């Protein structure tokens, strides 16, 4: 039976075939710098015919990457499932228990949850030929790879802040919230660590790595704070003027939004340049093991990273010129960019005791 999907894949194949004339390294060939037997892997992947991705990156943002992959490997269909961080985790552990693994690649921003999957033995070990291009902290035992570097940022509405000078550093932010406490009542937003995994990751990482985190949360608490489960929700409220300023939101998004809306200002505070990554692993017992490897390699390759950087996820490679990359971000942060490493320390975030302690402090500090 010919489905619509096949037609789409077929159209992709034609485009890719047309492009192959100018770019011989692509389209089912061996990517430059890979070992000679990589062709066997690609052949196997094409024979498998599909790769299934469980992700939290929405279709809008993920699409350029998927299209670039299709152009490079027209024989491999991509089943892209945006399930959210919790949804992806839930589906992976449920399917593993039912012995019906459906995912080849798990690729989400929940660094901690995915590290739990690795610790539960749900990740395949695979040394990507691209691994050499990555910083050491971005590869956990050849099982879990960081695929982007996304700093946290302050975003504000220029006209609503008016005469108030927007804070440029984390220290200024604290002072800003303290001195303008009354004027800012109900106007300050941030991530909700209780409802958002990213929110918890950011604040918990802050609390572990910086000394002034609780002072900041306390100052935030004094402003009748509003907390949200996503950066997009905060953008909506800042752009409309309902809130004036938000902190700890995903900076790579904020930079994209500010490009389209002159009234939005973005600050990557140089004294607090934390960054998280979207992480990827191959599922244990993946239904398309070869295609999974080919996709992971592509995700980490210069082409894949270029596509992602173009849709707002800064590259973890220094040789990607599209959008932002780790080197540029580090420069913007005055050389102090501090990505959260992909390490077993992430498991702490899902330890009930760590979480209970964090939330106790969080609530206490928010009360001011």
């Amino acid at each position: 039976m010919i489905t619509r999907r096949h037609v789409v894949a077929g159209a992709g194949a034609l485009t890719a075939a047309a492009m192959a004339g100018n770019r011989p390294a692509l389209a089912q060939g061996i990517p430059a710098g890979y070992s000679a037997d990589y062709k066997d892997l690609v052949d196997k992947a094409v024979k498998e015919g599909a790769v299934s991705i469980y992700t939290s990156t929405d279709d809008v943002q993920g699409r350029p990457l998927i299209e670039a992959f299709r152009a490079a490997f027209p024989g491999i269909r991509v089943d892209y499932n945006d399930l959210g961080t919790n949804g992806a985790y839930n589906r992976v552990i449920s399917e593993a228990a039912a012995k019906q693994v459906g995912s080849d690649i798990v690729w989400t921003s929940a660094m901690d949850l995915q590290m739990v999957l690795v610790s539960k033995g749900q990740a395949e070990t695979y040394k990507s030929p691209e691994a050499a291009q990555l910083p050491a902290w971005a590869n956990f035992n050849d099982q879990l790879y960081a695929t982007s570097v996304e700093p946290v940022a302050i975003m504000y509405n220029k006209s609503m802040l008016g005469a108030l000078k927007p804070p440029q550093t984390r220290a200024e932010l604290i002072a800003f919230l303290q001195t303008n406490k009354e004027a800012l009542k109900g106007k300050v937003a941030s991530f909700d660590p209780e409802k958002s995994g990213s929110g918890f990751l950011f604040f918990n990482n802050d609390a572990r790595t910086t000394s002034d985190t609780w002072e900041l949360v306390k100052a935030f608490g004094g402003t009748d704070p509003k907390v949200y489960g996503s950066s997009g929700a905060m953008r909506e409220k800042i752009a409309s003027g309902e809130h004036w300023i938000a902190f700890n939101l995903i900076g790579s998004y904020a930079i994209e939004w500010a490009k389209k809306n002159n009234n939005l200002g973005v600050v990557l505070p140089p004294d607090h340049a934390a960054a998280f990554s979207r992480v990827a692993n191959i599922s244990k017992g993946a239904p398309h093991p070869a295609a999974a490897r080919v996709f992971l390699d592509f995700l980490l390759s210069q082409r894949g990273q270029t596509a992602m950087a173009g849709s707002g996820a800064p590259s973890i490679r220094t040789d990607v010129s599209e959008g932002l990359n780790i080197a540029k971000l580090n420069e913007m942060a005055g050389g102090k960019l501090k990505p959260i490493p992909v390490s077993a320390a992430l498991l702490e975030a899902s330890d009930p005791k760590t979480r209970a302690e964090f939330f106790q402090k969080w609530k206490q500090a928010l009360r001011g």
Partner: protein
Amino acid sequence: MSLANDAPRFRAGVILALFVMVAAPALLVIYQSVLDAPFFDDNVRFSLDAFRFVLTDPEFYRALWTTTLYAFGMVVVAVPLGGLLAFLITRTDLKGRTWLEPLVLVPMFLSSIVLAFGYTVSVGPSGFVTIAFKSLFGAAPWSIYTLPGIILIGGLSHVPTVYLYVASAMRRLPSDLEEAARTAGAGIWRVSLDVTLPMVLPALVFSAALNLLLGFETFGIPLVLGDPNGILVLTTYIYKVNTIFGAPTYQVMAAVTVFLILITLPLVFIQRRLLRHARRFAAVGGKGARTNLLRLGATGQAVALGLIGLWLLVSVFFPVGGIVLRAFVENWGEGVRLTEQLTLANFKAVFEIPSLSRGILNTVLLAGVGGAIAVAFYLLVGLAGHRNRGRSGTLLDYSVLIPRALPGLIVGLTFFWLFLFVPFLIPLRATLISLLIAYIIVGLSYGLRIIQSTLLQVAPELEESARITGASVYRSWRDVVIPLVKPGLAGAWAMIMIVFLREYATGVYLMSSGTEVIGSLMVSLLTSGAMDQIAALSFISIALTAVGLTLALRLGAKLHD
């Protein structure tokens, strides 16, 4: 003669099948609630820790109290308004009632997430209505982020639910009693209170009880409007305990759901008591039921139209206006010149992204074809329960209302597990059939109540006379009951279509690449905050519903007389 023991095998078979479909997710939830890990975990053990956690968490009690206020507040707002609107539109000569009716139903077309989102764009602190009001009067003295604001919005959005139940009952009432009262000199309010109201009491009670249940299950409105301010209801509390531990903690979600079931079962019991004498209200007899409309008079017309206009402004124009505006701009709010922001980019993205355009197609299929299948299933269940006063009838009533107590998200999650772990269901998991089955369960109490209250209005003497002349019970259903309730069936189909179009929570765990549906796509997009596409999808969903409704009306679904 008694009809109670007719067709016992058919009744028992259907009711048992339904019970299995309904009990499976409920039992899975109860089982999960007394474990210390996901039920499929290798090291899982029995434990009451989840209940211990919930019962010692002050936030649970706060959420419980807020939910109670919300549910009762919603009934107080929705039932009188819905009843009044139904009366004005079906029983009086109100001007323009033919085109008013579809408008009155608009809030039903929208998933509550979309609705709440529309309100923030129109009457939120930076909404276009708020800004306009401020520039005219200096201040806008309302806040939609407070509990009363949320209750009011929740109540207004459920007016159509009440309206549909009451209007479908009112339409089946003959007007001779009202006319008699009018001739005897009673005013229109007297007539409506003393004649019409008692006759539609079953429908009012049904819709009040249903709204109370809906209130306990409510999710979207408190999620969007209450969350940033820390206003929690039980369902958003469930949502929160799912993330607060890092990895999903199904046992705590399940424990809270068990409390929801415990709250709703007594409601079902009370509802059954109230309706014990439903037979008294059967009004469609063997004689023709011609309806003559009550005259409102000039003042009456003005007051009624003014009232409806105000309700439409708040319940339809504000949220829909907000969504339409948001769908065609990238930025809005204070200091934003909307004329500079107009764009079609939001729609372009929707049509360019395969999963989103596929989602539109799937949603249409599921609502149209799936809705028809659902109505056929509900009719079978309705007939199995029709004039059934035996034990299986009691079982049926409870089976129908149990899924109402389960939040859509939980129903979807349990069905995801059932399709994953029950061997013969596995092949269906990645198809739209798995979604349809979950949707049928979620829409059960809505759809079945409509069909049941229609069936109830067929006077038993019609069936009795068919039986006396020698027809089997199946024949009396086929030749008497079903032809009489046909308009009700078309109406039920339209309504189920609407319910399926706007459903969002059920598909979140069930959909995969290839079986996306609009509502659940919006939830996925909400987690990353892609408001541009959410607004465009909401707009498309409204447009689809409008098309579906027009089609349904053309096909003979009589939403108005």
